[in-house]
């Protein structure tokens, strides 16, 4: 059914996953996933637990056999290839370092399986340990290393064979927050330096957005959306994606006007009409969901100042509410505003000025407004 000639377009689809399905008994872990991954990119599979992302990764590594579908890497069908013959290496979530071997022996393990000479192995191990900045630790045993150091050794061990494809299973999950942020950028540097294609599985959207050139959001074994981080964030395709990535204010409504370049949506839950620039096709009367990101909402004491170009009284993209909670995060503040319809809305505001003269207070009455390009209209 997918009789695509393998070398037809090698650069656009370095890894080609076609109709891949994995069943465990009655449970469909991966459900008919088709996905192309380009050479040299960092592709992040993002999803909650049980979304099938790890099963997909394990099928790429060869630890699980697909129930249906094919995986091609650089044109070669992987169906009958056991893990130890695939041009793929994996960095395990637990790192899976061999506890009875030194760092050097761990990293050399993969090269030894290729039957390389002793000098060449030593040279390559030294090089890769320098790249991950673990040059002086070759003689240590894994239990003598910190979590961050183990992570580097695991990365070095997976990279030393220069695989065509590196699979990373929650690579940063075991690190603390500060170290994780630092390591994210380092991982990107190393990836670009070596030019290896990365597939990263993560449940952490921040990690996925930082690392990934493209993301695939998974839900219930299916790919919900594929795109660049900004595609996914700014133009989510479904309510699941909008809700999963970042936080969002979502309201159900009905299309009341279907203009050439804009839609008007009657939102009972919101208590105003939403005017949105046209991005989806839908008909009058259809039920849709309006999703507005917290940082795309203005919050102010005066309606006019906030509404900008809008005429007063039209009550388009403008609601009144009361501040119920404020969370000061340092770089920004989160305001929980109860709008007049009773629903809560989340608004974030960057703290640009030090010590603003009259900050908003709890229980203060405010106006919320947004630009017509801010709302995303979702039909599913």
């Amino acid at each position: 059914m997918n009789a695509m000639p393998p070398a037809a377009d090698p650069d656009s689809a370095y890894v080609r996953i076609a109709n891949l399905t994995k069943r465990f008994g009655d449970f469909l872990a991966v459900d008919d996933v088709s996905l192309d991954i380009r050479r040299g990119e960092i592709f992040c599979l993002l999803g909650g637990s049980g979304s099938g992302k790890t099963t997909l990764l394990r099928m790429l590594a060869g630890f699980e056999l697909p129930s249906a579908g094919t995986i091609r890497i650089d044109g070669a069908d992987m169906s009958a290839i056991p893990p130890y013959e695939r041009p793929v290496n994996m960095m395990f979530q637990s790192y899976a370092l061999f506890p009875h071997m030194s760092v050097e022996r761990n990293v050399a393990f993969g090269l030894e399986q290729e039957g390389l000479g002793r000098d060449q192995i030593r040279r390559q191990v030294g090089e890769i340990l320098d790249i991950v900045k673990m040059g002086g630790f070759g003689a240590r045993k894994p239990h003598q290393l910190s979590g961050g150091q183990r992570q580097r050794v695991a990365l070095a061990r997976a990279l030393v064979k220069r695989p065509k494809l590196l699979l990373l299973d929650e690579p940063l999950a075991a690190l603390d927050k500060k170290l994780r942020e630092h390591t994210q950028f380092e991982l990107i540097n190393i990836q670009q330096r070596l030019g290896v294609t990365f597939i990263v599985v993560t449940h952490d959207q921040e990690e996925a957005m930082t690392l990934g050139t493209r993301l695939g959001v998974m839900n219930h074994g299916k790919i919900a959306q594929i795109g660049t981080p900004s595609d996914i964030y700014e133009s989510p395709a479904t309510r699941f994606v909008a809700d999963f990535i970042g936080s969002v204010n979502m309201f159900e409504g009905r299309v009341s006007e279907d203009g050439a370049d804009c839609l008007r949506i009657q939102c009972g839950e919101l208590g105003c009409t939403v005017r949105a620039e046209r991005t989806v096709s839908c008909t009058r009367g259809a039920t849709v969901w309006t999703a507005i990101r917290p940082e795309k909402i203005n919050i102010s004491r005066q309606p006019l100042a906030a509404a900008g170009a809008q005429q007063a009284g039209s009550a388009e993209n403008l609601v009144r509410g009361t501040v119920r909670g404020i969370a000061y995060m340092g770089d920004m503040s989160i305001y929980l505003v109860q709008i007049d319809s009773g629903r809560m809305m989340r608004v974030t505001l960057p703290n640009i000025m030090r010590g603003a003269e009259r900050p908003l207070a709890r229980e203060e009455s405010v106006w919320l407004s947004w630009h017509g390009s801010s709302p995303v209209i979702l039909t599913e």
Partner: protein
Amino acid sequence: MARLTTASGRRLVAGIPTLWLLVLFLIPFIIVFRISFSEVRLAIPPYTPLLTWRHGSPVLQLHWSAYRFLFTDALYVSSYLYSLKVAAVSTLCCLAVGYPMAYCIARSDAAMRPVLLMLIVLPFWTSFLLRVYAWIGLLKNNGVINNVLMYLGVIHHPLALLQTDFAVYIGIVYSYLPFMILPLYANLEKHDGTLLEAAADLGARPLRAFLRVTLPQSFAGIVAGSLLVFIPAVGEYVIPTLLGRTDQIMIGRVLSDEFFENRDWPVASAVAIVILLLLVVPIMLFQRLERRQLEAAK
């Protein structure tokens, strides 16, 4: 008050085994050790005292004759060497049979494991002596094995199975196999399966992954199981007596003969002390290994 109770409770918990070892191991050991430095005499007790009084002052009389005797009569040296050989071969056989069994149990379905372990321990429900006697019935000239082989026409004359080294190996391996399997299982069961996946991912075929990852990590289990088999096998008395050769005896038999037949308590004690010294070396090696493993686990 509660503090006092826990402190005294702790002392009690530590005290009982200490007392046990003191009364049932250390004191008998000292007695045996002391007798080994005496000489035989026809009296009750049948050995010379260590301390004698001469002109009102005590005189210590240490006799080395029992030990000297062990190395002058070839019987003892050859019995020691034979015992070590039998124990070593039996231990290796136990390992060869037990490792795959322990491995399979550890890899089997979690629900099946208790059943399989139960089967390993099940023979203990029958008396050890009875089980060894049962092997006589299997191995003797007109025993089950020979009869079946003759009936099938594989052999025409019965094989001499009983009273051979082979019979002793069978008896020891059969009796001590659980002591090999249980520590090995306890070790293998804890192994992290992702390490084998990592090995496969790095290009190691299953056999290589086993040799490079599973085997080295099960080393402590191998040592523990081997010591549990080797140590009692060296001093084994019942199995070689019932199944073994008559021209070559093991040291456990020598010890009992010295004691009960010859009534030579000093030599019997010296034999026991030398066995102990022979076994202390592997035990100390094991403890050093265990300490190293403990440090690694920290």
